[in-house]
């Protein structure tokens, strides 16, 4: 018994020293990225509108645009990104192990992830939330119309299932879950009439609706039963790098607020408005220097990637995934998209 205890404690000591070594050895991600000449970015294995490869082998999506914005800011070229497709389970380890430097993979910002597992969330590029889809013929107009015994189709083993359970418990309505492993199976079951409603994240609902045999026969209910703020993540403990990613994201969104986009930015360079001068990085502004970046960092982002509105239109609106901006409209236009001022 004593020997076992001794061995366990020795192993623990070994682990602690090993971890200690890891935390003392710090290198600046920003410097490494500049030296390497590319941004290492983790994306999904295919999520419509967020990160996806096209037939030509290029990555597109609103999450991908975050990576491209960071590359444009740091290296002046939005194409200098190396994408690593990651499964949901390995994404955080890949970030911690240094396989990637930015994780932009529709990751929900939660307390546990931010505080407990050595990650730093730098902002939100999409506000998602769980919703319900029903047949318009069912007469259900709101989640309040759900009756006892409602059959609900959803994916198994995700937070979606837990949110659904919480929701129905709080509402005091009995329900019958019909769960499947794959999103495609859920959609097929719902389309075939095996359940009354289908629940998943609203961005997913809109994308799946396009696959139905008659998309117009289905509506997404207005209520949202969970908060899913999705945003880019970096490693904890490298403040400079977190700042670069955070402000690349912020300037991308603020450019929309001031009407600066990829086609008019060249004329905006001479703008008299000090806020716009700061956004485009005109002569005399100090934003670039403060971030250890080039003076033209923000110009490069907007010129090469476009502003948030352009990204949204290209990836989510024109593709029919979420034509309506909803909560992702600017705070000035009835949404909740609000970023700190770039100054």
């Amino acid at each position, binding site marked *: 018994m004593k020997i076992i205890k001794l061995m366990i404690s020795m192993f623990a000591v070994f682990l602690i020293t090993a971890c200690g070594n890891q935390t003392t050895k710090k290198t600046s991600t920003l410097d490494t990225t500049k030296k390497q000449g590319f941004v290492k970015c983790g994306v999904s294995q295919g999520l419509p509108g967020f990160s996806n490869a*096209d037939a030509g082998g290029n990555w597109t999506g609103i999450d991908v645009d975050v990576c491209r914005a960071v590359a444009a800011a740091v290296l002046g070229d939005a194409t200098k990104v190396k994408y690593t497709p990651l499964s949901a389970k390995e994404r955080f380890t890949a970030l911690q192990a240094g396989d990637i430097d930015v994780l932009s993979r529709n990751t929900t910002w939660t307390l546990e992830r931010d505080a407990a597992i050595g990650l730093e969330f730098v902002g939100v590029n999409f506000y998602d939330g769980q919703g319900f889809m029903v047949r318009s013929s069912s007469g259900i107009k709101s989640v309040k119309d759900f009756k006892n015994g409602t059959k609900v189709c959803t994916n198994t083993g995700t937070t979606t299932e837990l949110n659904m359970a919480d929701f129905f418990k709080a509402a005091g309505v009995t329900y019958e879950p019909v769960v499947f492993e794959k999103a495609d199976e859920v959609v097929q079951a719902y389309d075939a009439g095996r359940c009354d409603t289908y629940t998943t994240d609203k961005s997913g609902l809109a994308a799946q609706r396009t696959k139905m045999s008659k998309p117009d026969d289905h509506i997404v209910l207005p209520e949202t039963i969970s908060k899913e703020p999705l945003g880019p993540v970096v490693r904890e403990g490298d403040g400079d790098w977190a700042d670069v990613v955070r402000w690349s994201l912020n300037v991308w969104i603020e450019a929309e607020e001031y009407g600066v986009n990829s086609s008019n930015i060249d004329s905006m360079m001479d703008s008299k408005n000090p806020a716009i001068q700061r956004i485009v990085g005109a002569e005399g502004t100090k934003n670039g220097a403060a971030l250890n970046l080039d003076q033209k960092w923000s110009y490069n982002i907007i010129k090469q990637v476009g502003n948030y509105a352009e990204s949204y239109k290209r990836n989510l609106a024109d593709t029919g995934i979420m034509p309506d901006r909803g909560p992702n409209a600017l705070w000035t236009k009835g949404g909740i998209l609000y970023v700190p001022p770039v100054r």
Partner: protein
Amino acid sequence: MNLVNWTRKNLFSNWHDTLLTFIILFLFYISIPPLLSWMFFDATFFGTSKKDCSGTGACWVFIQVWLKRFTYGMYPNDQIWRIDLAFIIFFFVIGAYFFVNTKIKKILFIFLTIIFPFLAIFLFHGGLFGLEEVETRVWGGLFLTLFISVFSIIFCFPIGVLLAMGRRSKLPVIRYFSIGFIELWRGVPLITVLFMAAVMFPVFLPSGTNLDKLVRVIIAITLFESAYIAEVIRGGLQAIPKGQYDAANSLGMGYWKSHILIILPQALKIVIPGVANTFIALFKDTPLILVVGLMELLGMVNMAKTNPAWLGLATEGYVFAAIVYFIFCFAMSRYSLRLEKQLKTSN
């Protein structure tokens, strides 16, 4: 006349046979025409986007447009010739193998097993002699499926042979090590092993040092499958009559000499079906690497079907993947049968 007799004898010999025949014909009737019209008659074969698909049948345009991605993954388009070149060399050598005499066969065999793997890795990965480096993160599609299968098969076979011999060894250290190794790897599911290799392993490494994820995955699959191969080969070793061992010993052969010259050639011949079985299973297990973010054939199909411009074409993608997997597995099983017949000595 012959046909009528045959039909009467085999399909309509009594009333329940007749009933069964009609039921089966009815099942064919309700299932085959819709399938054929979906796959061929109503299908769209040529086009450039989903809009070209007429609606009722399969949309093979999807496969046609995405074929490059399904085959090569995210490999840079201007570097694809390197993969093609490696596979052309590979199939050329394999093809030549059947037509040349024994002496050249030996040279070709050595080339294929010793030189070619390095040549292929050099071509795929580059980074030397002016060849642009292509990191494994962009490898994918059928190319990655074949790469992982071929390398795992090449490595796991010799390890398996050694483990099988080790398990029958009289030296306790070697025997218990082999037993422990085999039982450990057989006792855990492959998906767990892959998770350990891809997710946990980097955490144990000191920061800064990193082993490529693909290498970690290949090592994991190799160790896992070598345990199964070892057990298959052990079956062959035990099937060799004791007289063969005695005969080898009485000729003054030592352990290694008797195994290499007498025992293993016979044992391996017996276990060809089992080994082929394991290799086919290995090939079909490769889609599991999806869970660690490697995008082999099925991964690329999954990626393609979630592209906003191609939503709703999952069935076509899966049918395509199934056909490709079937072709390779069937070829492997046919080849093993051929090998069995070739090596059959009349006894």
